[in-house]
């Protein structure tokens, strides 16, 4: 006996599919309003947007959000999610999200209805829900400017429907019956994110969506058309702050969406935000806009946002099954079915975290020359530009440290930076004497920190590379040549004392007015006796021998000779100076020689020379005119007279005739080692 169908399918009209559609939006209302969040999201809210932003968490941070839809069937506020984030070991962060209210559900009325013998109609509707309930994320600060993040989340798809089956009953009849069937499919997804602080005012970022997917694929094949579309997507963004109060952001993704957003900081810690969504794939170019406002106080931040969709045709439960199949769902935020909504979020930071008040934006460092190591104690070795991050003036000080060459960091005096201001602060360094033993040039790590409060070790710090030159390296500046002069070097003292001792009788019996002049002649003669070679003066490079090295090597070039003889003169109290000549027509042939103070007043010039062109009259520290004698030290082997004659000729020609001193290519640098 054939079974009889005891039912009748009655076709009914298509009807609205969405009974209740709650969509997931970014956890924080700030990001809802700003729209372009890839670069601007920071803190706990980053977990499901760009996990690299988790490095914005200071210590502990919690975020909770709720929303209400603006549809006719709105059912009041819905708790969306709660996020907890923690920063640990300074450059790592972890976050967990639980989103009980983050779901999107649809009710699909079927075209068929079963008409039972007892005239009961049973619709064959389907219910579809998507849930994005749990997420775990980790972030790592790779460098000072770059952070990376990874997020893992679960995605549940559930389809419930009534199915018809036939049951053989007594009398050999098949009776149609219905049963509820529910199919659940789980997908695990992983995504990556990166943020790069290109400059203090420019930020870049990128985040993937659905990069890695692992699904248990338990949905029957006939229902897979209703499944959530999960295309792999890449979203990149840039943010720019032209002023301290304004942020402009732009995101674009591989689904041909773009979002423009801005945020403006008003007084009293109030922020305004707005976003414009652009979709190149639809006829309506601007499918949505966002508006928002936020307020923060110390460790609490409260935000509100309104998200409005410009195309309302399929919203408010007006869509049909055909619309659902045609449009599909691939994005829980932007799709054709979700309703306008208002989102509220509350963020609380707690723990030992301290909100930094200042940030180092830029650092300039000079090369370090060991020969002038003690000069850096009062002459800046670098400058840092420090930004005040608050709306109140702050007191800051900088500290500078190179571990290998300093015992403790050298600190600046306190400086005041106005609200949101930028200040350039020079800093010095107190080096250990051991730095003068560095033979070769090397690259070292230096740390600069900005401090403001005694409770906090630092507000910000940066590590930079600094070049530390070898002990004989010279930067070519004639003004720094004097730092190679070492009148207290034991070898120099021994030399000068021994030389003068040999002629003690002559010195003691000569005209006392000529004492300095005579001693200079004796020392020059003895210096000449010690040397065996003089390098081509034109071959002087950027390395200078210390005087003791010149004596032991028995030779050198013009810089070495000038430094050595100046040290010898200074060791017996005779003031000296370098004369640096850089001929403008031939700067490669720059040359240095010395001159020394005879102690003679001009009226006694005839005691040493009848020709005033052989000497220079300069004032000493007491303002008294004194006679100085130029000496060409590379002619040391030809004797004092020749060296004097050549020095005087060079000085007269370059200073008097060619006016090199006033034109700036001749410098006279007094040796002042105090």
């Amino acid at each position: 006996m054939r079974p009889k169908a005891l039912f009748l399918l009655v076709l009914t009209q298509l009807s609205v599919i969405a009974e209740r559609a709650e969509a997931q939006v970014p956890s924080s209302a700030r990001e809802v309003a700003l729209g372009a969040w890839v670069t601007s999201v920071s803190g706990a809210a980053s977990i499901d947007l760009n996990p690299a932003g988790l490095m914005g968490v200071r210590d502990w941070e919690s975020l909770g959000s709720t929303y209400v839809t603006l549809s006719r069937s709105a059912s009041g506020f819905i708790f969306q999610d709660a996020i907890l984030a923690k920063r640990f070991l300074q450059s790592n962060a972890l976050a967990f999200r639980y989103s009980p209210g983050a779901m999107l559900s649809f009710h699909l009325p079927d075209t068929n209805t079963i008409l039972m013998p007892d005239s009961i109609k049973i619709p064959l509707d389907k219910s579809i829900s998507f849930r994005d309930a749990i997420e775990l994320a980790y972030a790592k600060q790779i460098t000072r400017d770059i952070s990376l993040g990874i997020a893992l989340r679960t995605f549940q798809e559930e389809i419930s429907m009534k199915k018809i089956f036939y049951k053989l009953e007594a009398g050999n009849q098949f009776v149609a019956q219905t049963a509820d069937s529910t199919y659940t499919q789980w997908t695990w997804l992983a995504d990556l994110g990166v943020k790069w602080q290109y400059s203090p005012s420019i930020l870049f970022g990128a985040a993937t969506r659905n990069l890695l997917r692992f699904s248990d694929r338990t949905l029957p094949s006939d229902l897979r058309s209703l499944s959530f579309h999960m295309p792999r997507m890449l979203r990149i963004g840039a943010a720019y702050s032209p002023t301290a109060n304004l942020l402009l952001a732009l995101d674009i993704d591989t689904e041909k969406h773009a979002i423009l957003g801005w945020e403006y900081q008003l007084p009293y810690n109030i922020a305004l935000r707005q976003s414009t969504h652009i979709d190149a794939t639809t006829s309506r170019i601007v499918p949505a806009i966002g508006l928002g406002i936020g307020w923060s106080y110390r460790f609490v931040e409260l935000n509100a946002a309104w998200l409005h969709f410009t195309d309302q045709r399929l919203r408010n439960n007006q869509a049909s099954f055909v619309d659902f199949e045609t449009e599909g769902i691939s994005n829980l935020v932007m799709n054709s079915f979700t309703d306008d909504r208002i989102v509220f979020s509350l963020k609380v930071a707690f723990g030992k975290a301290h909100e930094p008040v200042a940030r180092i934006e830029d650092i300039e460092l000079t090369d370090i020359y060991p020969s002038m190591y003690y000069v850096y104690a009062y002459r800046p070795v670098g400058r840092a530009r420090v930004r005040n991050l608050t709306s109140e003036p702050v007191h800051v000080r900088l500290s500078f440290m190179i571990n290998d060459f300093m015992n403790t960091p050298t600190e600046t005096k306190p400086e005041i930076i106005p609200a949101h201001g930028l200040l350039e602060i020079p800093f010095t360094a107190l080096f250990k004497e051991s730095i003068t033993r560095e033979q070769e040039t090397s690259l070292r790590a230096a740390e600069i920190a900005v401090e403001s409060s005694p409770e906090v070790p630092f507000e910000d710090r940066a590590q930079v590379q600094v070049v530390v030159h070898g002990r004989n390296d010279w930067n070519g500046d004639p003004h720094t040549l004097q730092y190679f002069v070492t009148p207290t070097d034991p070898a120099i003292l021994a030399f000068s004392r021994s030389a003068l001792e040999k002629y003690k009788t002559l010195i003691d019996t000569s005209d006392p007015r000529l004492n300095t002049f005579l001693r200079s002649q004796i020392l020059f003669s003895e210096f000449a006796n010690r040397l065996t070679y003089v390098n081509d003066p034109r071959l002087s490079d950027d390395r200078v021998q210390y005087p003791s090295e010149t004596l032991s090597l028995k030779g050198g070039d013009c810089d070495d000779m000038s430094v050595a003889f100046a040290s010898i003169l200074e060791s017996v109290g005779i003031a000296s100076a370098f004369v640096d000549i850089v001929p403008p027509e031939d700067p490669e042939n720059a040359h240095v020689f010395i001159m020394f103070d005879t102690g003679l007043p001009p009226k006694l010039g005839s005691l040493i020379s009848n020709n005033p062109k052989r000497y220079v009259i300069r004032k000493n520290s007491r303002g008294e005119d004194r006679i100085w004698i130029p000496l060409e030290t590379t002619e040391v082997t030809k004797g004092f007279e020749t060296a004097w004659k050549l020095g005087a000729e060079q000085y007269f020609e370059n200073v008097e005739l060619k006016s090199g001193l006033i034109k700036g290519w001749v410098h006279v640098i007094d040796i002042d080692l105090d």
Partner: protein
Amino acid sequence: MGRKLVILFLSLSLPGLLQAGDFVVKSVKGSAVVRHGVSEQWVQLRGGEKLTDDDVVRTGQRSAVTLSLPSGSTLRIPEYAVLNLSDVRALSQEELLLKLAMENIRNVPRNRREGIIIPNTTVVHGSDKAQEAAAANASQNADGLDNSKLAEMEFTGAQVLFNHDYYGTCILRTKEVLRLSPEMSQRPETHLLIAQSFERLELISEALSEYALLSSMELSPSQRSQVESKIESLRSSLKK
């Protein structure tokens, strides 16, 4: 005829044989000496001799030297004068003012720690002078000339510069003489020379300063009248 041709050839080619900066002694009357560069010795000066800008010429009593300058003009050095040939050049106004500024700041104490490095150099090339008239110490140089006499001779040399329109170097040389021989500062003609040189260079403010200094000195009635008249006319020209 041949000799004439040779003479003609030499006279035409002689300027070409001269290097830039060469001075030629056209004539020497009486006794004159020259000191070359940084040499210690004065040597007799002869006609036809070539000199350079690092030479110094000195004339004696009833003597004179005429030089042919690189520019082609001639310059006459009278008796009892010392002239540095390096002064026989025109200074630009900028160069003059810079050199004068260097004179003014040479008293600033060096302070390297503040990053200010001011050359503590004063270029002085000239005769030394004892501060007091009868001072015993080295009032004479090795040539037997009194230092005050040398200062006079240098001032005469400065006047030569003025007469040949070298106003800038005239100012500098005169100031050098005054600095090393302060007693010369009591002579109005020294400041008058400086003031007139500034005037010729149209440096009116500087000229006014010098005339103002003059007006504070003891002047003869005619000198005072001249100075006051100058001050008035310069002030008028400044107002314009």
